[in-house]
């Protein structure tokens, strides 16, 4: 994309729908599995003395974690971040339009808080 192209930010950023759907399915699986109580409300087979009911739900802690992590990776790939930079600005709004509704109020690029260059900072403590 041409970096000087004006982006209409009142749109949903483009995404790979297939990947998003796959992530959605991954997120839905643990919910469906655990809400289907009759599928696991039984004592046998036991594992190390734990009734099936107990260890099966413990197992889902890890399965759900793995699925959520995979969904996280898929979502990052499916919809790359579309920056809301200068292209956001529309002409003829010399005062920045603060207090008015709509997109033109945004764009206070002097806001140092958001320009620390660490969009994914892990510890955030550098400011």
């Amino acid at each position, binding site marked *: 994309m041409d970096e000087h192209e004006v982006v209409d*930010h*009142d*749109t*949903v*950023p483009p995404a790979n729908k297939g990947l998003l759907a796959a992530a*959605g399915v991954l*997120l839905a699986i*643990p*919910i469906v599995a*655990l*809400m289907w*109580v*009759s599928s696991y*409300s039984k*004592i046998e087979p036991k594992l190390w*003395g*734990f009734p099936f*009911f*107990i260890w099966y*739900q*413990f197992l*889902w*802690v*890890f399965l*759900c*974690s793995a*699925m*959520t*992590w995979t*969904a996280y990776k898929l*979502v*990052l790939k499916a*919809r790359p971040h579309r*920056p*809301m*930079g200068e292209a*956001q600005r529309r002409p003829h709004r010399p005062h920045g339009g*603060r*207090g008015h*509704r*709509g*997109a033109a*109020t*945004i*764009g*206070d*690029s002097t*806001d140092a*808080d*958001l*320009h620390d260059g*660490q*969009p*994914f*900072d*892990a*510890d*955030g*403590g550098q*400011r």
Partner: protein
Amino acid sequence: MSNVNWTALVILVLLFGTVTIMGFMATRWRRPTSMESLDEWGLGGRSFGTWITWFLLGGDLYTAYTFVAVPAAMFATGAVAGFFAVPYTIVLYPIIFIFMARLWSVSHRHGYVTPADFVKGRYGSRPLSLAVALTGFLATMPYIALQLVGIQAVLEVVGLGGGDNLLAKDAPLFIAFALLAAYTYSSGLRAPAVIAFVKDTLIYLVIIVAIIYLPSKVGGWDAIFSAAQEKMAKPSAADPAKPTGAFIPGSQQMWAYATLGLGSALALFMYPHSITASLSASGRNVIRRNAAILPAYSFVLGLLALLGWVAIAAGTKPIGLDGKPNAQLVIPQLFEDMFPSWFAGVAFAAIAIGALVPAAIMSIAAANTFTRNIYKEWLKPGATPKQEAKVSKLVSLVVKAFALVFVLLLDKQNAINFQLLGGIWILQTFPTIVFGLYTRWFHRWGLLAGWAVGMVYGTYTAYNVINPVTKGHFGGSLSMIPGLAQLGYIAMTAFVINAVIAVVVSLALNLLKVPNGADETIKGDYFADAGDPRVEKLDVGVHETTASP
């Protein structure tokens, strides 16, 4: 005071004191230019990253609920009453993964600190925003009350308090309450963030020791599950026609188990404190990454729940200082019976501090909501940031005082019910907040109507649940699901009614073309991330520009 466990008490006081001092010193940590704006005091300057957020969420979510209320429910009536917390805290993460990033983005773009801020911006409706704010404020109180019950349980087992005099009986509770109030007041969210590290370290230490040591001491997991199964099958003391509880959910309890789990999961991230913590994250994707790493806490929660059954096998007798059995004391009592005094003291400190941190976070969040969405919106529109911060601090004290009233007035025997009661209320804000993150199809009056009916139905139905032992109202959170002849969590039934009404009324109002308020957000706002420019909406006056009918 003859049966005070002095060693445990000294350790408890020492650790508690250390944490309190850390709380006061937290004000200096990552020192902001001024503590006197709401953004700094309430959200720690919004500069927390993955790890601190992780600890904060842990401090937030895993609380006296986890290590007092849930094991107590497991001990008293088994899996349906207690173990649903495990599926609850598992399905929680896929659910927040889906919508929380959107809420983070739009909040960051528009300077929203509370869910009610978002609702006001999204729907341009002051009444709907007020409904959300009031619900958040109200629902947080029983949740804080649950934390105070946790602290009280520890102090009671260690031997403090007791006696017939109301003041003497609850004196330690008042002391803990005062400490909590003092350091929250002075440091804001920064205090819980620092303390969360200490708290989580202590809790993990105690849990690891408890889970490795205790089961072998009482004869292994086989013996534990046998003892639990036996106890749950015995006739109930309150009603001999029924069994004591459920070892695993029976065919008539599947719906109860599933709806308790799902309802609690949907409700949790509607609480102002959960949203505060999420908004503290430094980026949109921090929340999603957290959703993948937080289940470590769910596993811990499951193990803690099973300690309730370990106590059955150990023959723990949780007797209160008034001489009556009180299931809420079971975990502290188990620790006191089984551990050397000094380690019991460490464990008690873990429980007490573990209740303190979330209580602080919750009261701050409720206070923020009150200040922004009630005080500033309705009572004093021209308030300066300094006045806002001052009111927030005061209200955070008030909300704790209300919680104290809950503890003193309501039945403490079934503390998990405090949290479930809060869930019934807070879940009624879900359609407004979460549906609103995706669509503007819903009409503000439709959502308000759904909310009102859900609140009335939920409160009325919960009020009519009679405790089988005390015969008091608000005795539980399960009732018949209309049309299903199965027990279910009242919050879910009310939620479904709420959503249906919201759809029907919205449809009608949209067909009639009734104006649906002004939306100040744009689609791109829901995908914004750190690094994008944002509006500073904390400026005085901005909130008043949206017309309200």
